[in-house]
């Protein structure tokens, strides 16, 4: 485990009471990598993300981010599976709060900029329950993007979005992660999304989640338009490989 590794997961197993949710897992993520986690519902993806974010302590093994035991909110941005917006703040207020924690003066323009980045216009002054489910999820993403962390953890962030919005955000995320060199861990159920976004895809077995497939994605990260990329024969091949792994290694489980 070199100190340049953004994430180092060693022999980690996590139990909730008697339920072993994930593990044992060994996983090293070098800086700048875009890791996509795929696996059956309930296989432990969220748990693994929470372990990396520092919200859970592993029952066995160790987790290190940037060489240190992870502490929530330090060095890693996290988009939870649920939006988790603060109802006592307006939509814009939720984003402004994140900017404030990041130590930036939260001007209205900054907030609007972030909201526009996730495709939201003119909702800044609404209450959080006055926007649709997909809009809530996007506010949560905007909130996490407000802070410039070297590590970004995203738990099914685009699950509630329509195809068009989803593709736009995918492209944005792909470009930004490449340009800024941020390390990303991204959970999704969409094989297409996994292959499109990831520089590496890890497929987990059903609970307790273990690594079933660890596949580097050798597609070019720049230079190609999304449609061109999706049109590449390698893209189809990789998608087939991941899809097959998900299908064969996933069984509906508790």
């Amino acid at each position, binding site marked *: 485990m070199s100190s340049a590794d953004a994430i180092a997961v060693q022999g980690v197993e996590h139990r909730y009471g008697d339920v072993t949710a994930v593990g044992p897992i060994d996983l090293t993520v070098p800086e700048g990598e875009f890791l996509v986690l795929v696996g059956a519902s309930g296989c432990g993806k969220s748990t693994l993300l929470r372990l990396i*974010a520092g*919200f859970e302590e592993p029952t066995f093994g160790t987790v290190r981010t940037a060489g240190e035991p992870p502490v*929530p*909110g*330090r060095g*890693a*941005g*996290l988009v*939870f599976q*649920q939006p*988790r*917006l*603060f*109802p*006592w*703040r307006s939509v814009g207020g939720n984003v402004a*709060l*994140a900017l404030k*924690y*990041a130590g930036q003066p939260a001007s209205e323009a900054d907030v609007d900029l972030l909201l526009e980045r996730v495709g939201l216009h*003119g909702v*800044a*002054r*609404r*209450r*959080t*329950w*006055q926007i649709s489910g997909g809009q809530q999820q996007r506010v949560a993403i905007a*909130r*996490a993007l*407000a*802070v410039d962390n070297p590590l970004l953890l995203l738990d099914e962030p685009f699950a509630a979005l329509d195809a068009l919005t989803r593709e736009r955000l995918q492209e944005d995320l792909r470009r930004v992660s490449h340009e800024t060199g941020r390390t990303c861990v991204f959970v999704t159920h969409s094989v297409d999304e996994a292959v499109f976004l990831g520089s590496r895809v890890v497929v987990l077995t059903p609970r307790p989640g273990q690594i079933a497939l660890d596949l580097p994605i050798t597609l070019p990260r720049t230079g190609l338009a999304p449609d061109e990329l999706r049109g590449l024969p390698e893209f189809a091949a990789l998608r087939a490989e991941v899809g097959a792994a998900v299908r064969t290694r996933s069984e509906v489980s508790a």
Partner: protein
Amino acid sequence: MTSLLSAPPSAPAAERRSPLAPSGGRRRRFALRLVALLVLYGLWELAARTTRNPTFIPSPGAVWDQLIRTSTTGYSGHLLVEHLGISLRRILIGSVIGVAGGLVTGVLMGVIPWLRVVTEPVVTFVRALPPLAYFSLFIIWFGIDETPKLWLLSIAALPPVAVATAAAVQGAPTGLVEAARALGAGRWEVIRDVTLPNALPEIFTGVRLAVGMAYSSVVAAETINGVPGIGGMVRDAQRYSQTDVVVLGLFAIGLSGLLIDALLRTAENRLIPWRGRA
């Protein structure tokens, strides 16, 4: 966009078809209250007529006369408004101190585990103590002027806020606390931005109870050197079985209490638009 804000959140569906729906609700509410008031008045008049004993149940007329008399010539050397004003001042100061103290205690108790272990029993102990029992100690410690009264009222007002706050703070929603921490919030930022706003509804309930407690303690606080003061006035009247003055005092206390509670409720509705949405 601004106008969106002013639009009220759509009423919860469960109340949608209630007889008090927004349109015409005010007038209906007013009418209902008026009817209730008239019924109560009728019952009172009836009770007064049948018992025919003004020391037990003074007639509405007698109480009205006392209102006029105490407002013009006064009672125990002071006008009714003076009595009421002084007591309200005491209640106000006592409530403010008590609420502030309760908030601080409650937050600390809810947030710092080791402090809770020590403070919780103390607060529980203190709030079980009857003010009448320890009031004489206050006299000994603080004399007979304003100080012991304010202490009594503050101590009466503190527990509801402290207990409600502590309970609500302990019950802070894990999901949102985590969300704030994930964004980089420190310990106190979590408290300020998640725990406290989330506790606000319960805190408001606590505050409303606290003010009520201060109100209902005003007679106890004014047992000593309580004139002028509405509590002192009531006690005086009680001793001379001037029940009409007692009832007048009760009305003065109750009605002003009603007013303050209405203000608090309005503030609550303004400040907590997210109630039921979390």
